[in-house]
């Protein structure tokens, strides 16, 4: 049986990659993808901890469904933004600040 720590390490690596991508990327699409990686890191953790019962896996399924919805909304937002601004560079979307 693969030790728990391996799963956790994988999840930590994925989480770091996702967080890094969100912090440094300007392209909205890439930011959305990084967000998915973040969520999947969390899912791995949930599955990894569900050794005694299956509750963790149920949570992971919920989480995947919600992630799908979220991506749908996120992509729709990006499309609308692109229609207005002709770009999906997130740095240009700062018109609501002072």
């Amino acid at each position: 049986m693969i030790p728990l720590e391996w799963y956790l390490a994988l999840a930590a690596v994925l989480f770091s990659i996702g967080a890094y991508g969100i912090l440094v990327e300007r392209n909205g699409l890439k930011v959305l993808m990084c967000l998915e990686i973040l969520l999947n890191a969390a899912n791995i953790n949930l599955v990894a901890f569900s050794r005694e019962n299956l509750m963790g896996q149920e949570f992971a399924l919920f989480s995947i469904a919600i992630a799908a919805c979220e991506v749908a909304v996120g992509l729709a937002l990006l499309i609308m933004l692109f229609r207005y601004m002709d770009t999906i560079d997130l740095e240009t979307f700062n018109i609501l600040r002072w």
Partner: protein
Amino acid sequence: MAWIDYAYWIALLPLIGFVLELFIGKYTYKRGGLFANLAILGSTIIALGTLMDVLGGARIDVSVPWFYDGIVVGYLIDPLAIVMLCMVSFVSLMIHLYALGYMEEDPDKSLYFAETSLFTCGMLGLVLSNNLLQLFIFWELVGLCSYLLIGFWWYKPEAAAAGKKAFLTTRVGDVLFLAGIILLYFNVSHLPEPLSFRYIFSFEVLETIPPAHLTAIALLFLGGAVGKSSQFPLHVWIPDAMEGPTTVSALIHAATMVTAGIYLVARTYPIFMASPNALVVVAVLGGFTALFAATLGLVVNDIKRVLAYSTISQLGYMLCMLGVGSIIGAFAVGYSLFHLISHAFFKALLFLCAGAVLHGLANARDLREMGGLLKKMPVTGIAMLIGALSLSGFPLTAGFFSKDRIIETAYEYGAATGNFLPWIFILVAALLTAIYTFRLWFMAFTGEPRSYLAEHAHEASKIMTTPLIVLATFALFFGLAQSRFYEFVGANFDSHLIEELAHLGGYHFHEAHAVPFIVMILPAICAIGGIGIAYGIWYNSRVDLSKYISKDNPIYKVLWNKYYLDYIFKDLIAERLFGFVALLAEAFDKYIIDGVVNAISWIVIKIGSVLRKVQTGVVETYATAVVIGVVLLIMLIGGVL
């Protein structure tokens, strides 16, 4: 089931009349007036019924708790209150009846009757009150109604200004009165119902108050009376108050409002008696006002203003009577009230006659435009002659008996204390009163008509002349009641109590001296002499006045400008002095108060403009902050930090 148990309805009925008149008066018979007249008629009937009870010896003093320990509402009926109640309700009824005719054409007729009804309610409530706080509330209600009614024709700028002037001037007195009440309260607050009158009537209570406080209280009350009863120097509002409808002037001058000040002094007479020196001030101030106003009455040409000055002058007599009463004790209240009531009859009569004249002349008020009206309006002319005779103190009219008594007492006061000042003042004033009253009558009713309007004057309608006849009867024959009246009202205060209080105040009663015969008939001589002088000048034209009436004559100039008091009050005090204070206050407000507020907002804005740089609008920045925050949180929980 005596009348006296229902005496509070005397004040409640006009209040109900006010509400009904205000909301549905417009839709009733002839656009209003019905409810007010019925209400006041009811008050008069109850007042007269109660008078019968009180004559039979009944007294009542009932209070119910109001909102705070010892603050009560209630009513008090004693001889002093009941004669006032009868006079106020009866004279007010006459004026209301007359107003049915006088205000017939007015578009706001129902509003007028609502306000006069409330006015009457205020005055009746003031008289009924059994404690000072309640009296003060009604006192203010009367002041408010006077403002509303003087400014009733608000679209005239003079009327609006006059209403404001009346309100502000009487307010000076009201503040003094309130200060007096507060000072009294501090001295008696240990008693169960501190401001009730029955303590004022009690020697044990007044004894515990320091004499200096008593004098201060008495003088502050006098200040209130000076404002309400328009004594010098707060009399300036009354001549301007003539801008209101004439019926309002009659109400203010005869039945309600101005008599309230005299009533206050009479009601709190034990305090005045117990306070050293206060009554001397009352006597001299009253006497001086009587003379002062009489001189002003000589020069004005406005028929209503002549009467206004005569009111100030006659109120001076009443106040003077209370002052010189320090040598005779409790009876002074009876003498003063007798003049108050006979004055109410003849002054209401005179004003209503003046109203009839104005009605007949399309509101021309200048005496110089009248003349020869006796033939055109005989009833009004005769009624006004009776009123004028009574005001002048012509022998055997009501005014003669009441005024004669005051002048005689003033002489006795002079003989007893050596202070003849009040006597001289009011004696000269009596002469001047006769002169200016008959100047008015001769100028208006005799000679040739001096204007188109006077040629085409017409007599007033029946509903207006009937009250004139009733009031004229009283003005002629009320004097017959004098000895009974003195006994009745003079016994209002226990004479032993007054005597003990007089010791406290340092006054000494004197047995009535035999007044010299010449002094006894002097008032009558003054009256007849004054009428004679007026006859000589304005009827027979034996003296040519035109060379005296000019702006070059300094005496005339001073009188014409009303001793420059209006100038002093308005220009010097109101504008210069208060203007300077207002300037300082404005600077303080602008630079200090506003400065603090502006400084605070400036600081907030500056801090904000620095801090807002944090909000870049770049998503990455926010996300970085979130991640750093989460990492810090984890480290904190994990115990690394």
